[in-house]
């Protein structure tokens, strides 16, 4: 598999980001319903891994799926029309953004945390029998690695020697829970204990991710069994759009934060319940979580992978501005086409 040049990786990252921002706008306008988990912050993972896939490889995604779909080349207009609930959407308007799938691309998302692992194991099993050299790839969050079927798959994939790559996207969070607080051991070490080949990469560095993915995929394709790529990255837009944790931690003096705080304080001083120390510990932990959320990398921050890639391309003399403009035009045009014929209620 050829590796892709930095400029191309940056373009894919830009496409993924621009797509998410477009989705956000549509969501805010009320044109997309339900939970919306943006993949902002994961662009280097999506670009670094998905550019290394071939036709015939299967890809199992999660609730946070669009960056990988965009990079995989799933057509943008049908994807957007699906999210807009149109019957000519990618899935006829029946699936929505959490259950997007494209048979043609052998890619499917699921809103069930952990389900991407067994699903991709199945893709890998089919690849082994039907498409030699092809693989199954699962994207999974750090939180997902505690789900029974995910852990079982760590065993199954070795028992069946499956060409399976699991990409654990470790953003440090599962909704409002810090990964570390409910996750024992180190995720890579877990997989190693089952006999997996494990590589770790920094999700700010798309070339590093690509390199690692490319090496692991080559192993998988050669029939050397399953591999885990553990990548850390920021969660730029909270768990989902409108995430109250993010909102409140950013606006500690806003009315929502004050209301929550009021409720908490009044409960904390109610008679009956834990001792003073326990109550104080709770408060400290809650405030700590909010502080962590507040300090999380934001869009365009120094640790935004898109910015990191942007600067790297620039340093290398790449035509960043041209790429940006092309990407912007592509997404804008996709959105425009996707909205065609839709009565925009907020216009």
């Amino acid at each position, binding site marked *: 598999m050829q590796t892709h040049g930095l400029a191309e990786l940056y373009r894919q990252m830009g496409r993924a980001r621009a797509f998410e921002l477009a989705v956000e706008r549509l969501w805010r306008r009320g044109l997309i319903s*339900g*939970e919306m988990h943006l993949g902002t912050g994961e662009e280097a993972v999506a670009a670094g891994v998905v550019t290394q896939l071939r036709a015939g490889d299967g890809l199992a995604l999660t609730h946070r799926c669009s960056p990988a779909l965009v990079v995989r080349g799933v057509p943008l207009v049908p994807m957007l029309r699906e999210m807009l609930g149109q019957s000519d959407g990618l899935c006829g308007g*029946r699936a929505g953004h959490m259950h997007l799938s494209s048979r043609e691309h052998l890619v499917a998302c699921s809103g069930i945390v952990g389900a991407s692992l067994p699903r991709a194991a199945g893709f890998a099993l089919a690849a082994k029998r039907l498409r030699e050299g092809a693989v199954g790839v699962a994207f999974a969050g750090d939180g997902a690695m505690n789900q029974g079927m995910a852990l079982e798959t760590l065993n199954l994939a070795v028992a069946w020697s499956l060409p399976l790559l699991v990409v654990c996207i470790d953003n440090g969070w*599962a909704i409002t829970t810090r990964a570390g607080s409910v996750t024992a051991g180190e995720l890579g070490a877990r997989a190693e204990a089952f006999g997996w080949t494990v590589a770790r990469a920094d999700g700010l560095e798309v070339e590093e991710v690509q390199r690692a993915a490319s090496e692991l995929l080559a192993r998988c394709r050669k029939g050397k069994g399953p591999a885990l790529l553990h990548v850390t990255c920021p969660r730029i837009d909270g768990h989902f759009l409108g995430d109250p944790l993010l909102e409140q931690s950013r606006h500690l003096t806003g009315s929502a934060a004050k209301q929550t705080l009021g409720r908490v*304080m009044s*409960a*904390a001083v109610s008679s009956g319940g834990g001792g003073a120390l326990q109550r104080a510990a709770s408060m400290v932990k809650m405030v700590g979580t909010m502080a962590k959320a507040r300090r999380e990398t934001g869009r365009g921050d120094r640790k935004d992978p898109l910015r990191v890639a942007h600067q790297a391309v620039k340093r290398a003399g790449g035509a960043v501005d041209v790429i940006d403009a092309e990407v912007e035009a592509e997404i804008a045009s996709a959105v425009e086409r996707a909205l065609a014929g839709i009565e925009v209620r907020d216009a």
Partner: protein
Amino acid sequence: MRELTFGEAIDKAIEDAMARDASIVLCGEDVPLLRPALYARFGADRVLAAPISEAAFLGAAAGAAMAGLRPVVELYMVDFVAVALDALLNHAAKLASFSDGDWSCPLLLRAPCGGGYGDGGQHGQTLWGMLASIPGLTVVVPSTPADAYGLTTTALAHDGPVVLLEPKLLSAEWLEFLGRGGRETMTFDVPAEGARGAVAQAGEDGAAVPFGAAAVRRAGSDVTICSLAVGVHRALQAAERLGAEGVSCEVIDLRSLRPLDVETVVASLRKTGRLVVVDEDYREYGLSGELAAVALEAKLTPRFARVCVEDTLPYARERELAALPNVARICSAASALMA
């Protein structure tokens, strides 16, 4: 009496019970920040953040219930019970039988359920029929804050495992969290009486609602509409509309699926001879069938229609709303029975 939202009512019932009974602990994903008041008041020993390991923590809760605690377990959505069903089906629900009544498993499982906010087919199920098919389990679904408080209170004093489902459309907190997300641009068809209302204080009359007791929400003589959760409110609206057309509907809020209040249903059917089941669960092999059986077993032969969810819930808003039991479908079902 005080005015509470649906979600507040459940929270409050749990909080009141936890203050009374030190053996109650709460666990689930994110509970420290989902239930911050409980976390602040009772601390991390009694409000336990869980990893995304539903089978383990539900199973552990069932074990803890055997060993003297009264765990309340939160699932993020009832849809996810599918990864942890064994703990209910083969363990919690069977313990009393396996021990010939000697051992019980006082476990409360709380989970949001239902659609109507466009979250797609893996996140809008109710699955209450499936759960209610399990002997040994109690399954209740309130439709008002008062019942939410009352049924939770009863559950927390009950000696066996209870599943209490929380319709997201009635629960302002869940709807905001999962559906609105701070947007002014989204509208939901929320039944106001279900979302907010008067709730008895602990110890007051009505503060505990017994299991197996349905509530007649509206008296009528032509058609019995049996429902629960959001469906009750849709049924009441439909009954209003049908009333204007001269069709008198009795609306029964079942509240408790297992045990089921057969008497109330049968008494109503005796009067009306017509039954419309409004059920946000799947149509086949569920509540609507059970009520048909209840009628026939009572030697009643009502005219019958069911307004249920017939397939995987579609994502697109309009199609979801059409797939859910809605006022129009209820009205036409009831009218057809009058023809």
